[in-house]
Structures are given as C-alpha cells and as structure tokens.
C-alpha cells in the first residue's frame, strides 16, 4: 500500500530505457519515503522482465500477460492501471513522457481524478504548508518543470489526490543498477479481472517501426545549432564541423521549428536530454527549456554574436562572433593541429 509505482514500457519483450531510468529515480524516492518500489509490466513475451527490472531495485513486479496487450493500445492498459491502483493505492506513479506515457498518463489520471504533471525535469520529496487551511502536508512529490516560454521553473504538487503522477522524458533521469542480484517479488495477475472485452475496440491495422538514424543521446561530442544559424544551408557548417570532430549535430527547438534541422535532433525539455563530453552551442540563446536538456555536459562552448546571450553564463568558453566566421576557422585549425 502507498508505494511508488513505475509503469514499464515494453517493446518486443525489452523494457525501455526511460522506464529503467524511472526505476532508478523511483528507488531513491521510495528510500526517502520508506516504502516499496513496484513496477507494472503488461504485454506479451515477458519472460525476461524480472532479470531486466530487479537489478534496478524493484521490490514487486505486477505482471499482466496477454497477447492482446502488445503492442500497446490505450484502453486495456488504462483499465489495468486504474483497477490496480484502486486496490494498491500508490502514492506516486511515474511514466515515461513518451508517446505511450503521454497517451496513457492523462487517461489514467482522469479516471482516478488525480493530478498529472508532464515532462518533469526533477522530482523531489518535500513538505508543503497550506497557510489558509492551516494544514501541513509532509512527504509530497515536488514535480519540477520549466514553464511558460522560459525563465521560470514551476514546482507542482498534488496535496490531496493520489497517486501523484508525473511523466519524465528519456535521458532526464540517470539509470543506475542498485544491485545486480536484487530479487523482488513477482505478482502475476489474471488479466480478465482487470480488462473488459470492450477495451479492445481499437485495433492496430498496420505498424512500421524503424530505428532512428540519429543517435545524439550517446554521442560524446555534440555540435548544436539554434535559430541564429540562420538557414538550413548554414546548418551545413555544423555538419562539417561535426564531421571532422566525429560528433553528432543537435538543434534547438527554434531551429527545428524553422525547418533547419529534423525533429529527432531537438535537444531540451521537449527533445532529448544529453550529457556529452563536449557541447558546442552555435547561435543558441539558451532558454531554460534548451538548457534543461544539456546543462550537464562536461564542457560547453558557446558561439554567439551576442556577448550577453544567456547560454554564455553556463559556458566554459564563450566565443563572441558570427558562426559563419568562427566555424570554418575551428575546422581549419582542427585539421592543422590534430594527429
């Protein structure tokens, strides 16, 4: 009762990275609260789930095996969570801010009348005093996320409703194995007690998945461009630099919205979170939503013609100048001095 729950996203028997990251975060929260960490696995081919999940510190896995639960569709997964939560009364439920999590989370929160905060960048436990009612709430989940066009961060709480639900993007939390030999309990549930035949009215006619070509998340060096790059053609400069450095190209949302770069390259709160060894920000002003996705880079270089660009405050090196001038020089001197 009143434990921390993580919904596991599973594709073809493999638990998604984001779910493992959330288990790690969930473990920390459960330790702070002195409660258990529980995971929910619904789908088919779940034979290796325990092996995948227990090392991250899950105390209980709720397993729902049924071919009809995979691939994911909204209604049956909603019914499983809603009915399980009515019994288990979790205090916290975490999901990935993925297409699945953002389809399922709001539906479940609506059915339970509990609040949900999307795209959190940080989760903490703390107290809250409701001055007017003279009430103090202990051990609430602070759901922290940037809000409204930058510059502000909102701390959201759900004082009275349970579970406190939050979604988090992949890469925002760090995954870490608690103990490779950790063993929890497996609870297998009878699917028909949770799901009704009417939940299967939506059918998947066709499904094509392709592996993404871009892998910025794991690239040690990222050359990232913003609106200041000016055009899709100018982005070629960034590809040239990335090529010689063996780097990937990232982008700000303004650059993506302007069509300079593909959406998969977006870095930030609503894109990918990255922690490379070197991040070169070219023509990026550095709004909070962007910084949220790259501030943990080991070394940051900012190239910007505005010496007062906000990103400069978190940069290790600030190059004040036009990217059209600076980048070709960086390429030239790299070629000259390497090897």
């Amino acid at each position, binding site marked *: 009762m009143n434990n921390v729950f993580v919904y596991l996203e599973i594709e073809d028997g493999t638990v998604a990275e984001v779910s493992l990251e959330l288990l790690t975060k969930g473990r920390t929260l459960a330790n702070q609260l002195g409660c258990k960490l529980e995971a929910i696995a619904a789908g088919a081919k779940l034979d290796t789930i325990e092996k995948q999940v227990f090392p991250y510190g899950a105390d209980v896995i709720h397993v729902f095996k049924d071919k009809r639960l995979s691939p994911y569709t909204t209604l049956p997964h909603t019914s499983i969570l809603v009915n399980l939560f009515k019994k288990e009364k979790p205090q916290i439920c975490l999901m990935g801010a993925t297409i699945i999590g953002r389809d399922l989370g709001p539906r479940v929160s609506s059915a339970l009348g509990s*609040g949900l905060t999307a795209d959190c960048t940080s989760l903490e436990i703390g107290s809250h005093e409701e001055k007017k009612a003279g009430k103090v709430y202990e051990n609430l989940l602070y759901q922290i996320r940037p809000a409204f066009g930058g510059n502000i961060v909102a701390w959201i709480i759900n004082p009275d409703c349970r579970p406190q639900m939050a979604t988090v993007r992949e890469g925002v939390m760090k995954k870490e194995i608690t103990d490779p030999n950790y063993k929890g309990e497996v609870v297998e549930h009878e699917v028909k007690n949770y799901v009704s035949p009417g939940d299967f009215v939506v059918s998947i006619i066709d499904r094509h998945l392709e592996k993404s070509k871009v892998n910025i998340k794991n690239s040690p060096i990222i050359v990232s461009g913003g609106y200041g790059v000016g055009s899709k053609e100018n982005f070629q400069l960034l590809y040239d630099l990335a090529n010689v450095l063996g780097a990937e190209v990232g982008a700000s949302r303004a650059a993506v919205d302007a069509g300079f770069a593909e959406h998969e390259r977006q870095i930030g709160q609503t894109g990918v979170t990255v922690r490379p060894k070197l991040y070169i920000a070219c023509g990026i002003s550095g709004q909070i939503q962007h910084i949220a996705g790259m501030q943990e880079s080991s070394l940051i270089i900012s190239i910007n013609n505005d010496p007062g660009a906000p990103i400069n*405050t978190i940069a290790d090196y600030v190059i004040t100048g036009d990217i059209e001038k600076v980048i070709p020089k*960086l390429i030239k001197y790299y070629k000259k001095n390497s090897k």
Partner: protein
Amino acid sequence: MTFNIIVLAKQVPDTRNVGKDAMKADGTVNRGALPAIFNPEDLNALEQALGIKDQYPGTKITVLTMGPARAAEILREGLFRGADDGVLLTDRAFAGADTLATSYALAMAVKKIGDFDIIISGRQAIDGDTAQVGPQVAEKLGIPQVTYAEAIESIDRKRARVKRRLENGVEVVESPLPLLVTVNGSARTCRPRNAKFLQKYKHAKTVTERQVENLDYIDLYSSRPYLNLTEWSVADVNADPVQCGLSGSPTKVKKIENVVFQAKESKRLTDDDTELEDLIKELIANHTIG
C-alpha cells in the same frame, strides 16, 4: 453521409516568439507582450475536420474553446476557414484550471452540444506542452482516443481509420465512433482563410463582445442568427463549480522560481585566429577532441 465534428481549439500566447520583453522586471511573465494565437496543432486538427467536410458535404464542424472573452477570436478564425459554428466556454469560475479541470469543463460542454461523431483536438498546446486535455476529455466522455494522429485516413458511419506518427515509425489504427483524435503538427497544415467566409462571418460576435463594443445592430443579429457566437457559463453546461477552475484542479503550483543558472567562470574569446587556434590546441591536448 454526414458527420458532426467538434474541434477543440485553444488560444495561446505565442511562446515560440518569446522576446526579451516577455519577462517583467520583477521576474513575472508579461503575458501582454506575447501575441495570442490559435494553438498551432489545433489548426492541424481543424484541417482534419475540414478534410472530412470536403469529402462529405453537409458535415457540421463546431469549434469549442474555453478561455477569456477574447478567445472568441479563435471561433471567428475557425469560421473564416470553414467551420460552421463556434462555442465559447467562459466564466470566472473556470479560471486557474489545470488540465483535469479544463477537460471536465470541455467534456460538459461537449455533452451539452450533444450529438457528435468525432472530436478532434490538437496534440498539445504550446503554452504548457502537456498533451493531456485530449485524452482526459475522451476519458470523461467514455470514448476511445487516438493520439498523435497524422491523418484521419477514412471514416464511415461506424468507424474511423487513423494514421499515427510514433517516435520511431507509424501505426494505423481503426476505432469505432464516437472517437476523440489528437492531431500532430506533422499533419497537413491548415488551409488559409476563405474570402467568402471572412465576409460572411466578420461580424460574428459573442453576447459579451456585443455588450462591450456596444453593438446594437439588433436587426443584424436577429436576421442573421449565424453571427451569434454561442457563449456558455458553468451553469449553462450544468457543470459542478467545485470541479471547475482552481478548486477542481488537483495540481497546484507550489512556487515559481526564476531560473538561476549555475554560472561558470567562462573564458571569453573573439573570432581572432590565434585565440581560436589556441582553443583547439588546448582541447586536443586535454583529449576533449581528437
């Protein structure tokens, strides 16, 4: 064959063009400095509805929005592009709503509209990027949802076939009606305003707008009923005031903080050749690159 379609659309501050004057000196957001626009993905949603109407003339599209009095602009914008009707849900009691209270209010308004086959919303609104209201409205109405839609490929009296855009692929699903679909920005862009509709609806107003602007062309509004934009309050949609607005919102904002970045001691360089070459040498020497 004709359909009744409800499009959920929201007026949002244009957070994509946040300038320096968007923040006031005291660190609060200066909403006045941001133009109010039709939420971009809600235009994609409207276009999907218009596509169905092209194919099945006689289909009726109602744009539903919740917001302050000026959100009626959204309704006119919808009419200019081919919608048939607009409903503004407005009441002080709706203020401060989080997504759950918003979806409750919208679902009550949908029930009042009554007869519908499909509800189409945007995937998410750019002021919060939560993407919650669509699925929550569907849940409140007890109907299926299809999110992240790129195209409503076909529709008949019983079901719709929808193409979804996933992170790493596409999925085509079929759902019975009534249904709620949330539409992605990757869907077809919305057609522009139509000159004929612009002419026809430019004086369309809500009651409040007519009062504020002191428009007393009573004749005009009684002889052309389509110029009366529907305006509903909490009571009009039989909503429980406790479930609306701030009191109906389980999430509360505990605090808002200005962002203080952990400022670093940065080294400042110019585009001077020697400085840049020294930087590259340093990065190579400490194995950051190369």
